[in-house]
C-alpha cells in the first residue's frame, strides 16, 4: 500500500501537468496560428535575390531552388538547378522528404512572390524548417539581377558595388543585357532528385 501511495504521488501530478497542457502544444511539430502570423509578419521567410545569385555563382551545394509554378511554366523557363514542385502538389507524399529536412536551404520561387509565399506558409505551418521565399520572385530576378540597371552617377558607392556584383552574377548565370523572349537564358533542364520515400519502420512487438 505504501508503494502504491508513492506511485500515485508521482504519476498523478505528472498526469495533471500533461492533461493541463493545451492539446496543440503536445504535438509541437505544428505551429499555432499566432506563431505563424508573427513569423510571416516579420518576413523571416524572404531571402534576397542577391544572396541567391551569390550562392548560385559559388555553386553552393546547400542551395535548392524549388519552382512552385506549373510544370508548363517550369518547362518554359526555370532557374539554374531548380526542381519543380507545383503548388497544387505541394502536399503530395513524394515531396515530404524534400520539404521537411535540415540539409538544404530550400528557396521557393514563382513569378511574383505570392505562390512561393503560400508554399512557405503551408510548409511552415506543418513545422518544416529551412524553407525560404525568393524575394520579388522571377520578375525581380529578371529585371534586377539578370539585367541590372546602371545606377546614376550620383548614386552612393554601395549602388555601384551592387551593380558590379549583379552584372558579373548575370554574366555567370547566363543573363545580362536586354532579355528578349527568344534568347532568354535557358537553364539546363532540372532533373528531379530521386525521391526515396522514408518508409516508416515497422517494428513489431508484444508481450
Amino acid at each position, binding site marked *: *500500500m505504501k508503494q*502504491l501511495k508513492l*506511485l*500515485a504521488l508521482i*504519476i*498523478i501530478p*505528472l*498526469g*495533471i501537468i*500533461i*492533461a*493541463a*497542457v*493545451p*492539446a496543440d*502544444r*503536445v*504535438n*509541437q*511539430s505544428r505551429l499555432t496560428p499566432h506563431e505563424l502570423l508573427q513569423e510571416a509578419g516579420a518576413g523571416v521567410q524572404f531571402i534576397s535575390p542577391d544572396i541567391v545569385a551569390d550562392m548560385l555563382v559559388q555553386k553552393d551545394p546547400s542551395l535548392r531552388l524549388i519552382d512552385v509554378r506549373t510544370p508548363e511554366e517550369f518547362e518554359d523557363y526555370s532557374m539554374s538547378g531548380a526542381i519543380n514542385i507545383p503548388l497544387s502538389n505541394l502536399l503530395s507524399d513524394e515531396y515530404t522528404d524534400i520539404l521537411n529536412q535540415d540539409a538544404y536551404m530550400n528557396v521557393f520561387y514563382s513569378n511574383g512572390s505570392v505562390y512561393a509565399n503560400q508554399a512557405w506558409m503551408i510548409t511552415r505551418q506543418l513545422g518544416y524548417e529551412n524553407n525560404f521565399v525568393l524575394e520579388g520572385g522571377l520578375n525581380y530576378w529578371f529585371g534586377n539581377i539578370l539585367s541590372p540597371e546602371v545606377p546614376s552617377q550620383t548614386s552612393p558607392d554601395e549602388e555601384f558595388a551592387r551593380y558590379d556584383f549583379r552584372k558579373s552574377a548575370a554574366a555567370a548565370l547566363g543573363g545580362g543585357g536586354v532579355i528578349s523572349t527568344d534568347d532568354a537564358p535557358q537553364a539546363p533542364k532540372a532533373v528531379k532528385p530521386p525521391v526515396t520515400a*522514408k518508409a*516508416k*519502420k*515497422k*517494428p*513489431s512487438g*508484444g*508481450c
Partner: protein
Amino acid sequence: MGPLAPNEIISENTNFLLAFFIGIAFGWVLESSGFSSSRKLAGIFYGYDTVVLKVFFTAAITAMLGLLFMSLFGWTDLDLVYVNPTYLTSAIAGGVVMGAGFIMGGFCPGTSFCGAAIGKIDAMVFIGGLFIGVYGFAFTYGWWEKLYLARYLGEPKISDKLGISDGLFGFLLILIALGMFVVAEWAEKKFPREEY
C-alpha cells in the same frame, strides 16, 4: 529529433543492437520480479497475486507519460511512432486465444522465454506450443485470412474517438490504473494463498 530509427538518426542495425540490450535488461527485470513463475503469473486470474497487472500497467503508464512529455518538449514526433494497425475481429479472437493460453499454460510469450532461460521445463513446453501455434497459423493462413483482415480500423486512438486531448486521456488512464491497483491489492487480501 526522435524517434531515432524512423528519423535515421541511428541505423536499423544499431536499432537492433539497442533492442538486444534492452531485451536483456527487460528479461532480467522480468525474472527478478518473479515473472518466471507460472503460478505467480496465473495468480492474476484467481486474485491471489496481481503483480502482472501492476507491473505491466505501470510500464504502460510510464511509457505513455514518457512519450507525451517527450512530445511536449519537442524531443519526439508522435506521428512517426509506430502504432499497430487495428483489425478488430482478429484483435478480439487473438485476445481470447492468448488469454486462454495464458490461463492454461501460466505464461505469456515473453515470460515463457524468461522461465525457459532459468531452466523451467513447463516454460520450454509452453514455447514448443507457441511454435506449433505460429507455424500452424502460418501454414493454414488461407483459412483465416478473411477473419484476420476483417474490420480494419486503421490506427485509431481512444482520445480521438472520445474527442479529448491525448494528455487528458493520459490523466484519466492514470486514475483508472490507480483504481485498478487498489482493487488488485484488495483482491490479494481477499483471496490469499500461503504458498505458490
